């Protein structure tokens, strides 16, 4: 319960930071880079879990797509921060995201078969929605460096694609 509360809090923090009254709390570029990278790592780990646990062809194919795309984005992100000489900086949002993801993985690890598939894909839809909201409302508008902003914008288009893809897989499961 406490973990779930933190997850909800993290999600609302991501969104609240976008409200002008909280302008002072805008994340910095090193923090944004860390949040975006962390969000990618989380989905890669979720994909790895699904590849191990699921026997469903569609779910496995989707998980492979997630693993491949998020690895490609994160590779670009690492190359960019190196080029810009920016050191990604850990922050409360990254910490909350990681904590919530750990709880989700633990929850999913107890499920099997169709129940796992259903829960995994439902979380993928919700997770991409959450990350896309944060990218659109907070991370992209807060980013100062144009190259970082550009990468985040490409990332948003990819993740929006994933969200649609996940919704499609989810509808096929039923």
């Amino acid at each position, binding site marked *: 319960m406490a973990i779930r509360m933190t997850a909800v809090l993290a999600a609302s923090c991501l969104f609240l930071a976008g409200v002008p009254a909280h302008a002072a709390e805008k994340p910095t570029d090193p923090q944004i880079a860390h949040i975006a990278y962390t969000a990618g790592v989380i989905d890669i780990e979720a994909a790895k879990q699904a590849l191990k646990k699921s026997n469903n062809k569609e779910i496995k194919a989707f998980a492979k*797509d997630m693993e*491949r*795309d998020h690895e*490609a*984005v994160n*590779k*670009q992100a690492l190359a960019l921060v190196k080029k810009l000489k920016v050191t990604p900086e850990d922050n409360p949002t990254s910490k909350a995201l990681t904590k919530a993801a750990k709880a989700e993985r633990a929850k999913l690890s107890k499920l099997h078969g169709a129940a796992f598939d259903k829960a995994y894909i439902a979380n993928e839809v919700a997770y991409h929605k959450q990350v896309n909201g944060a990218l659109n409302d907070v991370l992209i508008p807060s980013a100062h460096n144009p190259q970082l902003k550009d990468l985040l*914008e*490409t990332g948003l*288009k*990819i993740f*929006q*694609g*994933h969200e*649609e*893809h996940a919704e*499609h897989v989810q509808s096929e499961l039923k």
Partner: protein
Amino acid sequence: MSSRNSNRSARALFLWAIGLAAMLAFGTAAAPAHAKTITVTIQKLVFSPANIQAKAGDTIEWVNKDAFAHTATVKGGWDVMIPPEKSASLVLKKAGPVDYFCRFHPNMKGHVTVSP
């Protein structure tokens, strides 16, 4: 006498050269009339141009400039894999309008009008 001969052979050579040039020109001009290749570039998850006009027999070549794999997929039809930073192509066989999308990122959409 000898100068007249050499004049004649020069003229023959000249005519032959014109004939050859005409054949070459005709030959190369005739090829694209049969079928052409239309290039669609993929960059930052956008098919560009998103709308193309083609004729049956033409080829579409997708040039993927992204670091991500994409597809050009038609529901119940073709499914072309376009690996990251690579190209893939397809010969259009049937006439008619076609909507295609990327299976991995369904928010990427393209359209082809194929005339017979």
